């Protein structure tokens, strides 16, 4: 009896409805890697189907979404294997954190004050409607060191929770938000130089 109810709980947790709640996050993850709406949609569909079929093997230790992202990564890797395109998608899977420590000093002077601090931006909301702005955003994101870009992407673009990002990347909690902070400093400066204040020149990260 006890066994039966245990099985029931698992089946309930991995019902189609429960799985479907994770669809938006999985789709964003797939889209950012595959850069194709239909391929991303297919990969997510296959992932949810596989997850549903594999329900019984899900142990719940790592959290459902982490498990789903794991399946999705396999589906995406399968895709690259099948396709003729040479893409180093596996880059995405590896992260180490050794060079995150060095660059905060570029933004602040030794007394802790800003080294040419943030100026005010004129009507940032209007930028959201401009194609060119999004191109600049892409450039700024791609200019981040790869590991930093990945952490920021998983948290802010895909929408994983902080602890899920830490699981994915092997970062400690403290390293996670320090990395997020540095990504913000860099993105902010890059957007300021390249979009909001194009007369401000000569900084190091843009």
């Amino acid at each position: 009896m006890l066994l039966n109810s245990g099985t029931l709980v698992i089946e309930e947790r991995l019902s189609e409805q429960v799985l479907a709640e994770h669809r938006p996050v999985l789709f964003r993850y797939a889209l950012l890697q595959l850069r194709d709406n239909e391929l991303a949609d297919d990969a997510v569909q296959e992932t949810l189907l596989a997850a549903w079929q594999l329900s019984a093997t899900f142990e719940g230790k790592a959290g459902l979404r982490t498990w789903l992202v794991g399946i999705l990564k396999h589906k995406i890797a399968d895709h690259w294997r099948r396709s003729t395109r040479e893409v180093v998608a596996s880059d995405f899977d590896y992260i180490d954190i050794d060079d995150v420590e060095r660059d905060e000093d570029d933004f602040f002077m030794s007394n802790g004050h800003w080294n040419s601090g943030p100026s005010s931006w004129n009507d940032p909301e209007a930028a959201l409607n401009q194609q060119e702005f999004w191109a600049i955003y892409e450039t700024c994101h791609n200019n981040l060191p790869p590991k930093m870009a990945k952490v920021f992407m998983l948290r802010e673009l895909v929408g994983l929770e902080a602890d899920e990002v830490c699981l994915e990347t092997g970062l400690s909690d403290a390293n996670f938000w320090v990395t997020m902070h540095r990504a913000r400093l860099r993105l902010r400066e890059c957007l300021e130089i390249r979009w909001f204040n194009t007369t401000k020149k000569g900084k190091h990260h843009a």
Partner: protein
Amino acid sequence: MRDCRDITILISKGLDKESNLTERFAVGLHVLLCSHCRNFQTQSKFISKVAHRYTEYLEDRLGKDRNET
């Protein structure tokens, strides 16, 4: 007394929901007087918003590319 470098760290922690009440109070007080950190705070929030919307923009653009080819 916390300087701008410390305050921006606290602002980031706040965005990741990891700051406590004392830290949020310190940030609130500091940004009243410091326009650089105030700009950093509003602009960091804006960058989050941009990042959240990026995939929508990408999906839209990829959809258009496909229709045009």
